[in-house]
Structure formats: C-alpha cells, structure tokens
C-alpha cells in the first residue's frame, strides 16, 4: 500500500490580513495557511468577520493591510490544467516561472483571470452566483466559454454530465434556474463553479437557507466532490454541523479576530477558548 504524502504544499498563504469597516467591524490580523487538498472551515457568529475575510481571500475586496499569497505548484503549469494557453498567452512563461502570486499586487486583469480559471466562489444565495435569465446549460457552460470553448455539442454534453454529477435531472438542461427549487439552484451553482475544475473553492454558507433533509444530501454530495476532485476549500459557515461534516480544520472567529484554530474534531470535542466552548455548547443536537 502506498503511503499518503505527509507534506502537502501550501496553496494559500494568508499573512496578517486586516480589513476593518470600523472598530471590531471586519477582520483583523488574520494569519493562516491553506494546504492543497485541505478543507478549512471558518466558523463564528454573525458579524464576526467571516464573510469579510472570505471576500478578501477570494479577491473581491482589497485588505487594509496584509497579503494573500497564492502558490501554484510548479509542476502543474496553468495552461495544462485549463486546457487553453490562449488567455494567458504572452505572459505564460513568466507566470509559470513565478509560482507565488500576491493576490493584490498582480493587477485586476490577472486577478479576475485567476478567479475565472483557477478559483471558484459559491455564494450563499444561488441567485448571486447564477445568471437567472439563461438556461441551466448556459450557466454551467459560461466558465468554459470564457476559457474559449466554442463547440456547442461539447458544452452541452459537459453540462449534462455535470448535472448528473450534482444529482440534477439532465433533461432539465434547457430550463431557467428560476424554475428550480432552492436546493437545486444551489446544486446548479456548484456545478457551474466546478465545471472548470478549479483548484481552490470558496464557499459562503453553501447550505444556508435550505431545509435539513436537502442540506444533508447537499453536504453528502459536496463531500464526495471535494474528495473526487481533490479540491481545496475555504468554507464559511455558522453551522457547526456543516463544519463537522466537511472541514478538516477549523478557525473560530469572534469580533473580527481568530480566537482558536485546530483540527475539526479537536475543536468541537475539546474546545479551549471560552467563546468556542459557548459556541459548541449552544448547539442543540451536536
């Protein structure tokens, strides 16, 4: 039997991130590393700065201070992964050479390309992540078309394959997302995000607003996908049950600061910080 690798490379290096809208509003001095293939959960009450932190990490909002470093593994050039060298042509050689990208130093064009090609973002409300006016198939195909895929038949086949993968009926590929239920819209958003096989995915309360049975199936599906695709995930949630199911490691936030970090079961079963203890004990059915 082959031993699993002990050292996973660092994918995201977050150095001293601060983004404050006011005193204790936002996030302050956040420092952590995300390794390849790891699912990091960020938990905390509403207003603790989780979502602000996620927006900064995902390149949507510049921090007041600190750096977000994204490390590409050098043996996996971008062009080979995405299947198109077209978009980054010219800068290709240079980019592969520099494996570490400072997210807010590389310029908007490259940051947006990164978001589109190598990263994914799953919003809490699927309506923020989907184009509600166009069909499910067009939603799934959009990122592929942005990468330069120009074959309708292939786009459609990929769309149907992904609908099966997220347990949607492929026969509904031409239906508008608004005719889907909340849980189905969330599945569609996940398919749309994962279709380009991103390396790093940010999820903001992916199961928020769904009823419990739908949540359970969605979580099950997410867990399978994360393992199959070898995704690295930053997951923001206030639901400890979701964190327990998906996350390998947890970060507990309060008033914009990290109060405790550790392995998920360690934090949930043996919380050290008083706030974490309060959080864990306030769950009705742990």
């Amino acid at each position, binding site marked *: 039997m082959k031993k699993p690798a002990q050292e996973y490379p660092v994918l995201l290096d977050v150095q001293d991130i601060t983004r404050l809208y006011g005193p204790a509003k936002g996030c302050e001095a956040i420092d952590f590393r995300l390794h390849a293939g790891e699912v990091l959960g960020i938990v905390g009450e509403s207003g603790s700065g989780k979502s602000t932190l996620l927006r900064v990490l995902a390149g949507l909002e510049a921090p007041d201070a600190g750096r977000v470093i994204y490390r590409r593994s050098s043996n996996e050039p971008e062009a080979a992964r995405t299947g198109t060298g077209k978009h980054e042509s010219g800068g290709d050689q240079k980019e592969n050479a520099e494996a570490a990208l400072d997210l807010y130093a590389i310029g*908007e*064009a490259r940051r*947006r*390309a990164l978001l*589109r090609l190598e990263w994914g973002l799953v919003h809490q409300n699927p309506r923020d992540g989907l*184009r509600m*006016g*166009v*069909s499910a*198939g*067009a939603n799934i*195909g*959009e*990122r592929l*078309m*942005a*990468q330069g895929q*120009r*074959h*309708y*038949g292939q*786009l*459609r086949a990929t769309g149907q394959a992904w609908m099966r993968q997220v347990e949607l009926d492929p026969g509904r*590929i*031409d239906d508008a997302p608004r005719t889907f239920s909340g849980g189905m819209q969330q599945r569609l958003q996940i398919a749309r995000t994962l279709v380009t096989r991103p390396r790093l995915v940010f999820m903001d309360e992916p199961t928020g607003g769904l009823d419990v049975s739908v949540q359970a199936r969605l979580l099950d599906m997410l867990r399978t996908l994360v393992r199959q695709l070898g995704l690295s995930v930053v997951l923001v949630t206030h639901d400890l049950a979701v964190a327990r199911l998906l996350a390998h490691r947890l970060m507990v936030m309060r008033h914009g600061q990290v109060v405790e970090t550790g392995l998920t079961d360690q934090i949930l079963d043996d919380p050290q910080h008083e706030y974490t203890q309060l959080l864990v004990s306030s769950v009705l059915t742990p």
Partner: protein
Amino acid sequence: MDGYNFAYLDEQTKRMIHRALLKAVAIPGYQVPFGGREMPMPYGWGTGGVQLTASILGADDILKVIDQGADDTTNAVSIRHFFQRVAGVETTTATTAADVIQTRHRIPETPLRAGQILVFQVPIPEPLRFIEPSEQETRLMHALEEYGVMHVKLYEDIARYGHIATTYAYPVKVDGRYVMDPSPIPKFDNPKLDGNPALMLFGAGREKRLYAIPPYTPVESLDFEDHPFEIQRWEHSCALCGSDRSYLDEVITDDKGGRMFVCSDTDYCQTRRGDVA
C-alpha cells in the same frame, strides 16, 4: 441658412466629435464617449447618426440617407431634408454617387468604394448590455477582453431554437479585439463589414457613444464550431428586379393573403430594373 452654422452643429461641437472619431478610428470597435448634443428630433430617430454626419459633412459632399435600405421612408426623407436645409449639400439616392451615406438598419447592396463613409444610427451600442446591466462592469469586461458571456447568449439561442436565432444586431469581433454591436443591421449584412473599403462610423445619440470600423478592417461574426455563422436566405427572388442575392422584404399586397418579396435596398432594385429595361 440664416441663423444656422453650416450643418447645424457649432464648430466647437464638431471639433469635439472629430476628436472622438479619431480615437474611434484608432481603436476599431471601441466605444468612445462624446458630448452628445440636443438635436431637433427625438432620440431614436437617429440623433447619433445625424451628429456624426453633421460633423463630417463638407460643402461639396453628396449625401444619401437610407432607412431599412429605402431612400423614400419617413426617417430617410426627413433627415435628407434636414441636411438640405441646414447644409445646403447635394443629395442623391444613388449609392455609387454618394460620398456620405447615413443609414438605419442596412448596408447598401452595391459594394462601397474607398473614400465613402457610411454612418450608422445606433440605438444600443453596448453588445454586453443584455447580460450585464452595469456600465462600469461592461467597460471593465471590454478592457479585460472578458467576452465569454457573448457566447452564453448564442448558446441560449441554440438551446431554445435549435439554431442561432439572433438575426439582427449580431455581435462581431473587430480586428480580433473588441466585441461590437453592429447596430440593428440584419446579420445578412455582417459579411459586408469585413474588410470593407469604406469607413464605417456608428453613432448612438441617447447613450452618447460613437465607434468605428476603419477601411479594410477584419470583422468576424461570433459563432460556435458546430453552429457556424450563417446569413438569411430566401426561396424567392425579388419580384421587381429578380435579384436572388439581395436582402428581401415581404410586402403584403392585399387582404386576401397576397404578398410579394422585394429588395429592401430601393436604389439597388431600381438600378437593376433600369439595367434590364
């Protein structure tokens, strides 16, 4: 012409539009903002095109105005009269004789030659608008060449209708860079944009944007590999001139189901009939 400057607009305005036009020609397909003026006609009647025509018109130029290909429809007649009155220029209906042609919804069938200028009236200059309502965002998308959503629209057409059902204002990529809305010309006319020897200017009065395709610029209509770009075809020929290669209008002739197909380009049709006779 008492009380009016030549061609209605004051010289400062013309200079401002000239500068914007130079920029537009330098960056083919890029939408240049300009300080659109109030014109003595409502938005939607071609105020953008009229301002461009007024700025580029010289005293010896010969002007032709068409609307849906015809020289004798309301819009064409009133704009032609406008320029006769405020510029005193000679007008014509012959495509070959014109120096400046202002058009709404068509490119003449007769091939244009170098030195001619075609001015389009544009209602919505932004091709990305249907999917992205924010102007800030669409400008960023143009700047960063994020044009994936244009194919989302075409994909949606095929998914719904089995073929690309967009028949007018069909998006094009100009000189391999900017995606552009060629104004509501039928896609039948799209191939005429490619490498055309004439200068083509586009003016949107309400949105205060102008853009251009310089002569001999490559213009490519967007499509899919397995659903290539196609132009409209008719089973009929023109009932008047017999042309089988021009854009045809269906005309209802009575209330008993009678109809005929005729060229939408009246000058082309009449010239051919003159040739035959």
